[in-house]
């Protein structure tokens, strides 16, 4: 139970220093992401088991090309870096710079989605063609859904940093932090997905 | 307090003796009709004794406490403020751990004697064509025939296919397809099972055997019937509205009766079982 004990330590120091009414939304989000990660873990486990025990039926087609997904990986990793930049900029109170980095991040996310779509349309197999194909689409689709949600979140955050009443500032930066954490999570999942689906 | 200790020991002894007696004289299980049924019943008795001692012992303690330590009219104040006792905690962690370990090893032995730990091979004895990568899962393997090694009995091969809501038995040797399973008493049977639609299960309570019959995933079951008679074959996996009615019969008969049945139904009567 290492997870528990590390949580405990953190909370002990927190409660002793801060007021009991501190903002715990980030903690809640982390817990949620662990849960979300388990959904992916289930899918990964299913895919790996299928691979191990269910041979591809004789005339089934399941071939993946590497270039596009590699590009996708680079796009997402880059976007993680740019999001980090945005967060840094907010801390240093460069609102404008923060907004620009946010836009770049969202742009990279959208580019990822477009490239993923391109891949979908060029693949030689469809959703119901065979077991691996179905699992491939389920996994990448579920991940794509996460990217879409993330991109929307980034745009909302971007919009809010622009508002004159300062809904997101370096004082109230939870929405940005939350979106950033979520985005890194989605990236991390992609890396695992890339390794399992394309490289293995 | 030595008297309490003596009482405790006496009561525990009585409990153990009592439950051993109960396990021997009460009849909880159906007839014994396969070579692994008596092994099963042995395990059942051991589990029954442990369970009974534990259950009656704990229930007794609860009832005793409720009576002995009940709050009587006029009593005020709290009970004894005892709350920690490391030796006790170690004791009641260690004893169940040992019991569990014993039960685990024992049931492993039982399972091994039933043939459950045998790796299943798809080739032995059966001669039907199979794709190269066919995986065989589960079921119970062949029991090593230790006693009568000299005269190894031929294995009866049967292929079971299950569908909503029937079992069909196929005897490849005689090209027999039958709704009833016929097997000669004392001969090892090897059954390869596969389902045509949803999951079913093959269960003969008198054999103490059950194995799911799965679509797309053949399974194997080996058993040796030991007592003649007719026993029910029951589908034990929910498979649709008529799941409850999905039953058949296994007829365990003397070898000559079996051969007669076989030859009557076989398409190639000259081949024997």
């Amino acid at each position, binding site marked *: 139970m290492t997870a*528990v004990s590390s949580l405990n330590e953190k909370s002990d120091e927190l409660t002793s220093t801060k007021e009991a009414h501190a*903002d*715990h939304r980030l*903690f809640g989000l982390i817990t949620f992401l662990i849960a979300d990660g388990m959904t992916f873990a289930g899918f990964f*486990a299913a895919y790996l088991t299928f691979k191990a025990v269910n041979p591809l039926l004789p005339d089934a087609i399941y071939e993946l090309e590497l270039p596009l997904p590699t590009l996708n990986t680079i796009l997402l990793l880059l976007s993680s870096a740019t999001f980090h930049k945005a967060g840094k900029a907010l801390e240093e109170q460069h609102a404008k710079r923060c907004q620009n980095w946010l836009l770049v991040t969202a742009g990279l996310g959208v580019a990822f989605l477009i490239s993923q779509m391109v891949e979908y349309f060029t693949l030689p197999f469809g959703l*119901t063609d065979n077991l691996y194909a179905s699992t491939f689409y389920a996994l990448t689709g579920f991940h794509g859904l996460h990217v879409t949600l993330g991109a929307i979140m980034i745009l909302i955050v971007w919009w809010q940093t622009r508002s004159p009443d300062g809904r997101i500032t370096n004082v109230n930066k939870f929405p940005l932090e939350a979106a950033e954490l979520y985005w890194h999570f989605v990236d991390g999942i992609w890396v695992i997905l890339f390794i399992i689906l394309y490289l293995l | 307090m030595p008297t309490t200790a003596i009482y405790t020991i006496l009561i525990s002894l009585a409990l153990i003796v009592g439950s051993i007696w109960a396990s021997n004289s009460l009849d909880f*299980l159906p007839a014994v009709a396969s070579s692994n049924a008596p092994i099963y019943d042995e395990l059942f008795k051991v589990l029954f004794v442990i369970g009974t001692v534990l259950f009656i012992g704990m229930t007794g303690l609860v009832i005793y406490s409720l009576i002995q330590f009940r709050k009587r009219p006029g009593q005020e104040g709290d009970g004894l403020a005892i709350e920690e006792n490391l030796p006790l905690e170690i004791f009641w962690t260690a004893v169940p751990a040992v019991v569990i370990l014993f039960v685990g090893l024992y049931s492993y032995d*039982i399972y091994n004697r039933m043939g459950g730990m045998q790796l299943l091979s798809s080739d032995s004895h059966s001669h039907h064509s199979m794709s190269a990568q066919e995986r065989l899962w589960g079921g119970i393997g062949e029991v090593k025939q230790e006693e009568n090694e000299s005269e190894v009995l031929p294995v009866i091969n049967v292929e079971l296919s299950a569908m909503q809501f029937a079992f069909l038995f196929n005897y490849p040797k005689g090209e027999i397809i039958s709704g009833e399973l016929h097997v000669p008493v004392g001969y090892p049977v090897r059954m390869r099972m596969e389902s045509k639609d949803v999951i079913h299960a093959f269960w003969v309570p008198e054999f103490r055997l059950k194995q799911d019959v799965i679509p797309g995933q053949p399974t194997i079951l080996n058993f040796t019937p030991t007592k003649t008679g007719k026993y029910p074959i029951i589908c034990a996996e929910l498979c649709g509205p008529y799941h409850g009615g999905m039953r058949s019969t296994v007829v365990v008969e003397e070898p000559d009766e079996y051969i007669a049945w076989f030859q009557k139904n076989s398409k190639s009567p000259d081949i024997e079982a």
Partner: protein
Amino acid sequence: MSISIPPNTESNSKKLQPTGWLRYFSFSLDHKVIGIQYLICGFLFYLIGGVLAGAIRIELTSPMSDFMARDVYNQVLTLHGTIMIFLWIVPVVNGAFGNYLIPFYVGARDMAFPRLNAVAFWLIPPAGLMLISSYFINGAAQSGWTAYPPLSITTPAAGQIIWIISVLLLGGSSIFGGINFIATILKLRQPGLKLMQLPMYCWAMLGTSILVVLSTPVLAGTLILLSFDIVAHTGFFNPTLGGNVIVYQHLFWFYSHPAVYIMVLPAFGLVSEILPVHCRKPLFGYSTMVYSIMAIVALGLIVWAHHMFTSGTPPWMRLFFTIATAFIAVPTGIKFFNWVATLWGGRISINSAILFSCGFIVNFILGGITGVALAQVPFDVHVHDTYFVVAHFHYIVYGGSVFVIFSSIYHWFPKFTGKMLDDNIGKLHFILTFIGFNLCFAPQHWLGLNGMPRRVAEYDPQFTFVNQISSVGALLMALSTLPFLWNIINSLINGKESGPNPWKALTSEWLTSSPPPVENWIGEAPLVTEPYGYGHKTKNSNSPVQMNKKQETS
């Protein structure tokens, strides 16, 4: 989702939320209101699930399928299992008591995320109603609560899809609740309150919530794949399309085995709160109790395949899962021995709460023993999917969790309402339930051993008599609900006032008025570092409860 909570003042507690009975129908953010909402909602679903159980038992009084059509029987048992698990036990032992008690126990004024909390509750009634309405629309799901493919893919799709959506909603509710409990217990603890001073129920809920967060999402993913198989004709679990039905079983049980601990760990926690109060003794072996909860959580995650011993798993897997499963008896046993040690030497008030708790101990031990037997592969190969299993889990879920829920209602009703329940009617309720329960489920062990499979509407006539005994037991259980309901209604209307702390308990929910004010305490929260400090009265110098000066209780 702001969670900054200002100190309680009269004006503060009156605004924002509706008051009176109306608040139970509102999107209330008060953890106590949400707790009661969970409890009442869950109980209504229990009655529905119970009527379905009644229908099952009526059908089984005769060996023919005569009371209802065969497919209706399958729908009824699917609904019964699903409702009882997802709409009664899980929401009540977690949601109801968790919401009501956890903030008190950590010394907080509400849960960490009150709005999320309300959302989690309000997912339940629509999901439940949808599930039940599917029966009237096009026939409910009929592949059992386990929904094994390919059966669940080939039965009528509408009912199965509605079943999936409902379970997804309920799973979501459960995850939101779990996140909230973890955050509340770890983050909202009062300064000065150490983890090892928390009441046992907090530990139970922490362990349960970890299980919820780790395992429920896997079920959600699995059901999404299953729904693709049904709607989009993919072949994940469809062997005719190259899929694998066993993978579904692994994924399903990866959730549904932990789910059984989600149903029972909180009940363990509740018993640990109830016993010390009525025995007037400290909880025996606090720290081993804590470790055993965490051991159950860890082991609970790695034993799922014991539901699949006949599905065709490789031998090494069976061996591993046998040993791992049976070892859960060790930490569980620690808890039971400690409870008995808590009873030992106490000054026990024989009331309805303690009777139901002791009933739980006795019933659960029997259910646990049959569980350990089932964990042995060679044993399970005979009784898997028979009434022996049905008996095993009803001994645990009914004899365990439901008994604890009743015990808890008798214990906390005065806190919820400020009124006492009638103890004599409570004892009548206990006796009827206990006899009915054992009459109903004990004979089922024999049925299973002797050849009656589960999930059948028709059976071998040799089992008729024993089934009828079982049905009489079910009837007694149904009857036992009547004195209980009467007791509740009667007490609400003209029950005796209970005062803030009728049991003279030490945990902090009792150190405020009954029912408590909106933010739990007028003034500052008391710091309870010894929730089980009974019998420590002599050491007056350090009283277990450090009362705050501003504290106004009795």
